[in-house]
């Protein structure tokens, strides 16, 4: 499958600072979402030693070469790319599990991204947690960034630090926030930070909201990104994000909207009562 445009592709790093907020899930879903729209997409896992992106994509049993084999010259980059089993225009460059972050340098990563963006419309780089070598490698070749954050103080503080580091890099021209694991019910009862609070603290533009969804756990275990599931709210959120990344103007989801029939009835009575 050929690239859809002749221009060089976009290299987008997905990062967060804090671990466990959903970087890898976001990478898998944005990548899969863009591929569903017809773009040619490469996913790059830079979490060397603690790789997970292959698992989320359900491709762990197909890995022969990895990113370290590429930079150490044991194979060509396209040889190491594992093609997705569902979509031919989506491929994964897996991290090495048996090495550590020092196996890759920023220069090597930059060169790699240069190569990949000649072949792909989108190169989505999954960053490891932290701000050390692994993070520096991940952002080395990127021109855009997606910061993933949850509505918790600790995640917000780490995201702020990351945004500071991203702003300091001239190469990164654009960065936006994905707010993950939002629970509208908790926000209503003032138990969780409001979306606007987070955006205000971080003074950053919102790329999208992902509601807390237990289906994410199921999809992670099955190795099928949730963006492919049509009846899930989180899947809808990721589809919207992918469209926004591609440049479409998509309105933000209203998470307060009742979803089930029972909720709608309840909402109706609540409205008439007030």
């Amino acid at each position, binding site marked *: 499958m050929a690239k859809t445009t002749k221009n060089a592709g976009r290299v987008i790093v997905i990062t967060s600072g804090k671990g466990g907020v959903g970087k890898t899930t976001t990478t898998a879903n944005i990548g899969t979402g863009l591929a569903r729209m017809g773009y040619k997409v490469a996913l790059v896992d830079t979490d060397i030693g603690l790789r997970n992106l292959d698992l989320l994509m359900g491709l762990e049993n197909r890995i022969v070469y990895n990113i370290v*084999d590429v930079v150490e010259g*044991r194979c060509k980059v*396209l*040889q190491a790319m594992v*093609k997705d089993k569902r979509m031919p225009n989506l491929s994964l460059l897996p991290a090495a599990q048996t090495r550590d972050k020092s196996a890759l340098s920023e220069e090597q990563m930059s060169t790699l991204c240069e190569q990949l963006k000649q*072949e792909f419309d989108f190169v989505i780089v999954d960053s490891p947690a932290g701000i050390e070598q692994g993070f520096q490698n991940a952002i080395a070749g990127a021109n855009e960034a997606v910061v993933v954050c949850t509505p918790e103080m600790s995640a917000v503080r780490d995201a702020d630090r990351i945004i500071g580091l991203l702003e300091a890099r001239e190469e990164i021209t654009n960065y936006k926030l994905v707010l993950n694991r939002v629970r509208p019910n908790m926000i209503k009862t003032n138990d969780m930070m409001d979306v606007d609070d987070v955006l205000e603290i971080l003074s950053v533009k919102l790329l999208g909201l992902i509601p807390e969804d237990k289906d994410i756990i199921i999809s992670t275990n099955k190795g099928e990104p949730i963006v492919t599931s049509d009846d899930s709210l989180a899947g809808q959120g990721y589809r919207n994000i992918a469209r926004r990344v591609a440049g479409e103007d998509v309105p933000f989801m209203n998470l307060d909207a009742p979803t089930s029939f029972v909720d709608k009835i309840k909402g109706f009575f609540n409205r008439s009562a007030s």
Partner: protein
Amino acid sequence: MSSDIRDRDLEQSSGHENVLLIRLDRASNSAQALTMLTDAIQTLTFNPEKIQQVNLNVGELMLTQNVLSKMQHILKEAGLQIETIYASLPQTQQAALDSGFFVREKPPAQPFVLNTKPPSFDDLDSIANILDPLKKSDPLWGDKQPLAPPALNIEQVEEVLNISAHQAQTSSDKKNTFYLKQSLRSGKTIQYDGHVTIIGDVHTGSEVTASGDILVWGELRGIAHAGANIDGAKGDYRSEIRAWKIEALQLRIADYIARRPDKMFHHRDVVTEGLVLPEVAKVSDGEIKIYKETIGR
């Protein structure tokens, strides 16, 4: 008959430039097989300095040790030695084993070349196609396809486990064995020029590479590569991988590679006389297959 033999019954085994494959599987009895072999040797022109070994394909013939030693004699006079005998009949297999030959059921279905560089794929599609499932031919485990092994890194072992992997090996039959009494967790690798025995589990995310056989006294869930090409030494597709339970992400034997099916149906424990049988993976008919171990039964 003679020119006929040269064309059809004699061929150089692919991948083994110094080994001849002689087909006797069309003979109907052992006497005819002996005549065919004699004719083949007489009509055969080969460079005796280059070719010294012969693989015999005897098909479904029933051959005794006596006949095999006659064959050995005929070949010896021509300066040739028998390396492998391909026989499908168990009696013949046993006779050949007793005579000290390597025995295989069939010659490899596809020609393959050991000790080559990985194929170069300029096209992104080709590597993915190689790993796409082909067919479900094995009742225990689905899809296989040969592929060149990745280049190996000896230093990793030394780093992780302080093992010297550079062991001088003179004969493939006299390989050393590396014995490890601990489970291998994610991220750990063992590479060893010889056989590897692990008393413990091999977890997902770890890799075991050996130029010889691999024996896991536990569950094998990571990647195992037996008969690997280490330090330019020839890989050996006759190597085997044994474990109490094989649920490996990938199995590699020499140039062959097999991956776990995407939907791993839950593992079967075959219980025979109250015992769960261990499993062995080997190359057969040009692909890696998993069998229940039946030694001594």
